[in-house]
């Protein structure tokens, strides 16, 4: 390993991933607005550019030229740190998602991921994903506003409650795969029963994904009718946008991770002959999961807070433990 492999290539890959992620996030907002509009028999944004394709750009430019207000009663350093604490983990999560098979460029073998082959990649996913809770909690505390603090307490309680079933389902997946390296999880062959059994567990995982990325019907940070905007109440201008972007980034990365774990990642027909099809398959599968996100948002009303907590602790947690137990017995009996 020389310094080109160690530093230069990761920087190039990281910059590329960042660029693609942020562009994709911008268009994810448009995707969602368009889809929700169609679900509600409206047209959605269609003025900026053809089919509203320039709408994300217009939004970003508008927000960049907003006045930055830091209210006087906030704890300033923490207040400014919080949006970054929400955004950085959402980006860093993507580093272990393998985008395709290894490429050969300029006589070097370049894996299309930054660190997916480390042997604790899956632990990294869980660890980084839970750092996002700090962003919420710090924002709510530093804002020194009743709505913010209530929203932050609720959201962090929700996120840690739903992290448990998520981690247990990931542990069940580990039972089947026997490795924590994301690259191996994608590339290893699985028997048919393992695929079917994992797909059976996917709805459970999807529910925890919805709750972890604070999406409807679990969008408690933004219970407009009770908490104004939850922990984001005191944030305006681009500081608000950073929270907004990190929510969509979280959707995007968690969908990509789910595709990687449950649906074979970049694998698909003819991908061995044409390695560049890998990222295309990954993108298509991710869009399918994102469509589910939007579909759920358009169809299901928000839960009540006590329903949310009792659903997490009294249904999801026991069911995921049961899933784990059955998976363990299946793995021991069948392998």
């Amino acid at each position, binding site marked *: 390993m020389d310094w080109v492999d*160690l*530093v230069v290539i*990761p*920087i190039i890959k*990281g910059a590329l991933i*960042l660029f693609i992620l*942020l562009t994709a996030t911008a268009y994810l907002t448009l995707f969602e607005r368009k889809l929700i509009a169609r679900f509600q028999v409206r047209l959605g944004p269609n003025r900026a550019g053809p089919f509203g394709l320039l709408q994300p750009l217009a939004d970003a430019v508008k927000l*960049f*030229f*907003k*006045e*930055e207000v830091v*209210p*006087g*009663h906030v704890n300033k350093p923490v207040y400014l740190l919080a*949006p*970054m604490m929400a*955004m*950085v983990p959402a*980006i*860093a999560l993507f*580093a272990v998602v393998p985008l395709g098979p290894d490429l050969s460029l300029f006589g070097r073998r370049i894996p299309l991921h*930054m*660190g997916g082959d*480390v042997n604790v990649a899956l632990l*990294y996913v869980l660890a980084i994903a839970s750092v996002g809770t700090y962003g919420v909690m710090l924002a709510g505390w530093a804002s*020194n*506003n*009743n*709505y913010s*603090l209530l929203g932050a*307490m609720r959201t962090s*309680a929700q996120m*840690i409650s739903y*992290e*448990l079933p998520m*981690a*247990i389902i990931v*542990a069940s997946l*580990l*039972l089947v795969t*026997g490795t*924590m390296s994301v690259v191996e999880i994608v590339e290893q062959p699985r028997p048919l029963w393992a695929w079917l059994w994992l797909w059976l567990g996917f709805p459970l995982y999807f529910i925890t994904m919805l709750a972890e990325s604070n999406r409807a019907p679990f969008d408690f940070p933004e219970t407009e009718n009770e908490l104004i905007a939850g922990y984001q*109440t*005191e944030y305006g*201008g*681009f500081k608000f*946008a*950073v929270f907004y972007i990190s929510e969509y980034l979280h959707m995007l990365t968690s969908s990509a991770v789910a595709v990687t774990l449950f649906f074979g990642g970049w694998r698909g027909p003819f991908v061995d002959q044409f390695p560049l099809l890998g990222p295309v398959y990954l993108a298509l599968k991710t869009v399918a999961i994102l469509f589910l996100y939007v579909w759920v948002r358009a169809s299901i009303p928000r839960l009540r*807070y*006590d329903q949310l*907590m*009792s659903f997490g602790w*009294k249904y999801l*947690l026991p069911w995921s*433990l049961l899933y784990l*137990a059955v998976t*363990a017995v299946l*793995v*021991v009996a069948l392998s």
Partner: protein
Amino acid sequence: MPYGYVWLLIMLGLAAGVAMMMMFLPLLLGPRNPVPTKYEPYESGMKPFMLPRRRFPVHYYLVAILFVVFDIEILFLYPWAVILRDLRWFGLVEMGVFLGIVLVGFVYAWRKGALEWIR
């Protein structure tokens, strides 16, 4: 391997750089029009009569404690899950006993009403 995680440092650095840029670019581009009311706590137009730094319902604390208990349990699950194929039935029974003990605690917390949000 000491260099195995350089990519993580690079990725975090890049992500933090972009986040900083997003946070501080509007300071240069945006207008400045300080009005005293802009700097007050947002409370739907009222003067807030209560600051949020006060005592809080104990539910959140209970949830946090339960979370810590289960999170540690899950940490034990991970290494076990990776090598279960080699441990076979022995590993299954061992983890069954461990999970059984944790479940007793869970049932106790449930019966005690720690999971009820409304009392």
